[in-house]
């Protein structure tokens, strides 16, 4: 899209991932394309079930298969298609060049292993570093993310850490190999509000220091506003809008984005009634030929039920709303 292929670190096209459950085939990700430049920060926003996490897990091939299946698409990372690369090659990228941090720091660390063993594992796997040296790096990494008394606490177990501290450990672990891309899957959702801000600041700082690219998955537009350069809005397994952060907030080009914004308390004038989107996201095991947002959309018309693609409606601003594309509505 906006980043030219030569400078793109990662370029995903037409990714489709499905889950074969007993209630039918759930098309969790349905034709997602985007690209990401070196050092760029990209936000992916959507409700739970919109496919934002599945998109990123698909890139790392961390989808449990079965029931999940990556149906089609490609994801070129430095010339390697992550979706079809041999397992061996992919493993050399995971945790070394692309790292992830996860939503729930309480369950994402192995409760049976010392922090030390988990933290330095990427170094042992990817850099074949002697253990003593790796431990030193581990202690330094913990200090960098603000874990006090790191030299002692590195010997502890996850249950001895608070949620915020565990997420710091996760971040230290993800960044210990200086990756080129960090995928953050709602890393602040499970934390207290004050801790959320600290973690966000931490990642921001480290991102600038290391110059890595970041994909930040969240359902919170507010987080995106302060951090990301560009935003993808996902709904029902598709990208419905993609733009730079300023543009997206200033001039949203999809009714769903508009609705999301209206439901953020901080963005509303005092006293104004908070907007809630009526209805529920669609059942992804049923075929959805037209715009999936139609049943909940305040602007929907009869012709919205025909198929719609993501299209550039303004320079570097894409929307999948047929009425916006046709210039029928201004949001």
């Amino acid at each position, binding site marked *: 899209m906006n980043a030219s292929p030569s400078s793109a670190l990662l370029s995903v096209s037409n990714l489709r991932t499905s889950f074969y459950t007993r209630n039918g085939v759930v098309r969790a990700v349905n034709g997602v394309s985007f690209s990401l430049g070196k050092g760029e920060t990209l936000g992916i926003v959507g409700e739970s079930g919109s496919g934002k996490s599945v998109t990123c897990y698909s890139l790392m091939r961390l989808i449990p298969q079965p029931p999940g299946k990556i149906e089609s698409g490609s994801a070129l990372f430095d010339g390697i298609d992550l979706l079809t690369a041999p397992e061996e090659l992919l493993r050399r990228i995971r945790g070394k060049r692309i790292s992830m941090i996860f939503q729930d720091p309480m369950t994402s660390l*192995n409760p049976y292993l010392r922090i030390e063993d988990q933290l330095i594992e*990427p170094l042992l796997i990817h850099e074949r570093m002697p253990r003593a040296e790796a431990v030193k790096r581990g202690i330094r990494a913990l200090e960098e993310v603000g874990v006090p008394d790191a030299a002692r606490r590195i010997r502890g*177990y996850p249950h001895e850490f608070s949620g915020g501290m565990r997420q710091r450990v996760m971040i230290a672990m993800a960044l210990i190999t200086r990756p080129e891309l960090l995928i953050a899957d709602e890393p602040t959702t499970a934390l207290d509000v004050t801790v959320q801000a600290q973690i966000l600041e931490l990642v921001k700082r480290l991102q600038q220091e290391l110059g890595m690219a970041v994909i930040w998955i969240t359902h919170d537009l507010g987080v995106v506003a302060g951090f990301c350069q560009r935003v993808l809005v996902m709904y029902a397994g598709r990208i419905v809008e993609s733009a730079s952060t300023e543009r997206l907030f200033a001039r949203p080009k999809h009714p769903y984005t508009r609705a999301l914004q209206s439901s953020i308390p901080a963005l509303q004038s005092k006293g104004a009634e908070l907007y809630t989107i009526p209805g529920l996201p669609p059942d992804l095991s049923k075929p959805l030929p037209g715009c999936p947002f139609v049943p909940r959309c305040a602007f929907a018309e009869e012709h919205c039920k025909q198929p719609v693609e993501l299209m550039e409606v303004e320079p570097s601003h894409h929307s999948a709303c047929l009425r916006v594309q046709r210039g029928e509505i201004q949001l």
Partner: protein
Amino acid sequence: MLRFILRRLLQTIPVLFVVATVTFFMLRVAPGGPFDEEKRIPEEIVRKLEAHYGLDKPLWQQYLIQMKNLLRGDFGPSFKYPKRTVNELIADAFPVSLELGCYALLVALTLGIVAGVIASLRPNTASDYVPMALAMIGICFPTFVTGPLLSNYFGLQLGWFNPGGWFFPEDRVLPALTLGFYYAAYISRLTRGGMLEVLNQDYIRTARAKGASESRVVVRHALKGGLLPVVSFMGPAAAGLLTGSFVVETIFNIPGLGRFFVMSAFNRDYTMVLGTVLFYATLIVLLNLVVDVILVWLNPKLKFE
């Protein structure tokens, strides 16, 4: 940890006391005595024998004497093997049972864990169904069915092994397999369940995201948590291996403690029965303690308390 072990050991004392008391009175309430069975021992001799073993004293006195001896770790003389003490008899017979038990445990753990892990890696495929079907067969055909079958087929028909006895190294094979298979079946099911649970955890995904190979994920990240159910099962299993050996010892004609125990109960060999029961009880209590210590050691969330 030392305090934990000491406290647990202290707690076993009342348990063993209860065991000893219940056994003592059960033996005396039960009809028959140690010198009934042989036909026509003159009354006089029986009385002399009883006096010799202190059986003519009032019951409460016998009980106190017995308890005092037990405290010193002395199980007393056997009634049926007059020249030998119960301690000696146990010391002779138990190593045989222990050896059998160790081999069986080895069979059970290796087979069970390997089969369980394999099954858990690809659930609901052939590599899951085949070992689990075998495990089901193992559970449904107890040792007293498989034992005679194995003894008959490999012992008598193929002639690979002796159908019974405990003389040559190869005599260990069939009994150990018979006993081990049964527990392997249980262990494989527990392993599979534990591993499936763990492999679905978020931290396994974290490990994969770090670029850990599949074998590293299984061995370093999953096995420790996945085997916890197996470890908890080891307490009852070890007890089961001990008592299960009654049957296997009978089938394969092995001079172990299990057969001794059943025989001494039939013979009303009071001291021998009491001795073996207490011995078994102590063993089981200690095994449970060992299992608990291992559990805490494996699971950092648990503390010794």
